[in-house]
């Protein structure tokens, strides 16, 4: 009897466990069903890209909803400009369009995961910001706006006005899943910083080549033997981002995880970590290491440790954003160390093709939830999105604010912030954003040239002008190679990306710090990269890119 009862109990437990597992597996397939209504987008398969000819209206249009409409948005909240419900911009948007923008806040720290979760669960808002990096399956969840470009006259007008290449918005099959930021100019505020007081003391000119920089750092080392003149923050990707273009290579922040991209100068597609250009860059960094000129701790050090070295004569050279050295200078001066940093124009090398850095005129930022196609007010929602991001009057208000209250215009046509928010008086450009929600990046789809300069101080603008005048800036407007892959292709290749990158990161540091020899061990390194999938992916990208170019003709 006891035995029979035990057997029965076991059967019940096994049955319930199987039922639970079956239930879980059934639920896992439930997410995609939420988006079954997006069959319109799913029906389109790869094929020749459709030529989208749109009758561009003579001028952008405005529109007001004839009845109250609510549109939801997933708002990417930056730490320095936290969301406030009381920002006047929300009321302005509603007053101008009769549309209430209902905002769901997503902190920047976990925004990508939030986007993936909401799309997978079929609960995404109508507008999703910063969708580009989420890596979601667009075909199932995001609206293809290619068939609806005629409903977005403001966007098309801005594209024509700023001479933006609409092909950059398209996937290989001509579909468009992301809305762009349309900026008249790109502004690059990342630079190499060196100690100008030391340079003047040494009687040296501003470095123009990597060899000049080497000589400068040697002098610094002679004066401060315990120092390591070049110290970088945020690990090696930041160093490669700054130094790489001087050697004609695109690494670090310049490239995605698969580290294959199109050179904005030569148009070549390469696997950059195994290129000859990278080899020369690593040779140079190894030379710095042999001469004690590069900080061995730079890969792991914290922000505060880096600032300490820069303020106490333990380091003198670093790549960073404009304005980032100000607190270092202030701290040093308070300690009686009168130092100054100056930004340096991008350096040339023996490898360089006469260019130095790339910048972007905005990017692909917003996605629209495909579920809105079932909304009876679908057309109105599209019109609202078009007005919100691309209507000049709306964007003027959202980006600049109210004239004579938040900004003024001088006789030369230059725009200046009100004194309380004037960046030239040491005020952060984030202050006006925090107070009014003005000038937020995630609400800015249209930006004219003179608007762009309003939130940069004179020092930054002088540097930007010098950069442009040097002819060393290239606007990177190539198609993103990742967008040419189907979801299956992307999943197939992405499996090898992480282990390959891990190998490459460690080998590049080995070359820099002399643990591997740049001449003897290079071929073996390249071979190993190929074994880990770089060659296969590179050939595949080249093939897809040729198909893409053929489709654009």
């Amino acid at each position, binding site marked *: 009897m006891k035995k029979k009862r035990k057997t029965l109990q076991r059967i019940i*437990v096994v049955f319930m466990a199987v039922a639970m597992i079956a239930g879980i597996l059934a639920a896992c397939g439930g997410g995609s069903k939420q988006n079954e209504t997006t069959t319109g987008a799913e029906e389109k398969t790869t094929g020749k890209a459709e030529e989208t000819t749109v009758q561009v209206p003579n001028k952008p249009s405005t529109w007001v909803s004839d009845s109250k409409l609510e549109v939801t948005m997933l708002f990417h909240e*930056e730490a320095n400009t936290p969301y406030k419900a009381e920002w006047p911009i929300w009321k302005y948007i509603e007053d101008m369009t009769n549309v209430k923008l209902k905002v769901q806040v997503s*902190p920047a720290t976990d925004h990508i995961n939030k986007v993936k979760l909401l799309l997978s669960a079929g609960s995404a808002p109508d507008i999703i910001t910063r969708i580009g990096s989420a890596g979601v399956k667009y075909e199932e969840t995001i609206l293809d706006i290619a068939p609806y470009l005629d409903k977005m006259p403001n966007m098309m007008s801005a594209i024509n006005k700023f001479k933006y290449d609409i092909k950059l918005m398209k996937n290989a099959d001509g579909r468009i899943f992301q809305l762009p930021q349309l900026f008249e100019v790109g502004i690059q505020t990342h630079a190499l910083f060196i100690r100008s007081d030391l340079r003047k003391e040494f009687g040296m000119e501003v470095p123009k080549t990597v060899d000049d920089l080497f000589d400068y750092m040697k002098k610094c080392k002679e004066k401060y033997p315990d120092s390591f003149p070049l110290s970088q923050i945020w690990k090696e990707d930041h160093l490669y981002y700054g130094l790489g273009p001087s050697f004609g290579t695109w690494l670090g922040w310049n490239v995605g995880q698969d580290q294959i991209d199109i050179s904005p100068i030569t148009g070549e597609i390469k696997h950059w970590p195994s290129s000859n250009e990278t080899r020369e860059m690593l040779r140079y960094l190894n030379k710095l290491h042999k001469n004690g000129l590069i900080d061995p701790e730079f890969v792991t050090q914290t*922000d505060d440790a880096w600032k300490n070295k820069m303020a106490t004569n333990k380091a003198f050279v670093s790549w960073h954003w404009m304005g980032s050295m100000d607190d270092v200078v202030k*701290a040093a001066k308070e300690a009686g160390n009168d130092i100054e940093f100056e930004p340096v124009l991008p350096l040339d090398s023996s490898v360089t093709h006469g260019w130095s850095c790339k910048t972007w005129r905005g990017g692909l930022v917003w996605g629209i939830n495909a579920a809105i196609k079932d909304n009876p007010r679908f057309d109105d929602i599209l019109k609202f999105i078009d007005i919100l991001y691309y209507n000049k009057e709306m964007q003027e208000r959202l980006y600049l604010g109210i004239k004579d209250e938040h900004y003024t215009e001088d006789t030369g046509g230059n725009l200046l912030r009100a004194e309380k928010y004037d960046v030239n008086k040491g005020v952060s450009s984030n202050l006006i954003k925090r107070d009014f929600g003005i000038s937020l990046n995630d609400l800015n789809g249209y930006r004219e040239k003179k608007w762009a300069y309003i939130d940069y101080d004179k020092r930054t603008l002088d540097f930007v002008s010098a950069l442009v005048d040097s002819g060393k800036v290239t606007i990177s407007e190539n198609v993103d190679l990742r967008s040419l892959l189907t979801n299956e292709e992307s999943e197939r290749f992405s499996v090898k990306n992480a282990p390959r990158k891990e190998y490459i990161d460690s080998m590049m540091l080995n070359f820099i710090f002399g643990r591997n020899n740049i001449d003897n061990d290079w071929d073996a390194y390249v071979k190993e990269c190929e074994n880990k999938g770089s060659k296969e992916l590179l050939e595949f990208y080249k093939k897809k890119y040729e198909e893409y170019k053929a489709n654009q003709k």
Partner: protein
Amino acid sequence: MITRGYKIFKYTNYAFMVFVILLTLTPFLNVVSMSFSSNSAIILGEVGIIPKGFNLGAYKRVLADPYFFTGYKNTIVYTCCSTLVSLFMTTICAYALSKKRLTGRKAIMSLIILTMIISGGLVPNFILIKSLGWINKIWAIIIPGAISHWNLFITIAFFQTLPNSLEEAAEIDGLNPIQIFAKIVLPLSKPILATITLYYAVSSWNNWFGPWVYMTTKDKYPVTLYLRSLIVGAELAAREGDVDAMQKAGFSPTTIRTATIVLVSFPILMVYPFIQKYFVKGVMIGSIKG
């Protein structure tokens, strides 16, 4: 008689314990002193356990943000409600499961153990909560995870140590099971109740993930989510070139971070000395019998 050897041991022991205390206390004191120091002093590496360039700029900045107080209020509300609900559900569940005569007890225990190994996943959980209409509601924070496996098992183990004769005597006196539970069992269970209250309260206080998943408006965020956004988000922003000039104002992301850490952890630090003994007892419960 106290021998010389014992005295040496005693004083060596004291010295060692003081060393361990300093070792564990120093990083915390460093965080506190950084929160009261100037940005320049931090950059110059001059801040140890005593603030340098004393200023309250970071605290003023944090306390000027209304969402900090909203977050704090939410954290207190979520912690109190979660702890009460969890305490109630855990004790009644544990009491029932502590009775060996409960039909299907083994099957239920097996299922509970199964859920420790297999989880539905984040997306199905989100869909479930959404279907219940709990998105952006406090129930989404309280109900999922209301019963912790670990706390349930240690409570079961504790209830099993109570003599059956007490309950039998109460039954003879005419009490029903609910009255026995409320009037006999619970008063005897103060140690375990204090232990699991502490565990649930600390867990709930630190919880940011549930609110991040289920809350859609910022006025429902707890202070821990606010803190996370501040700490991690500031570095993300700096990497994208968003150089906030608060450095020029005398405080920096570091002082803001440390000030927020102090403000968020302060209540737990104030309460913990009074309930520490229950925490220690709780760790031992279930391992020592008799």
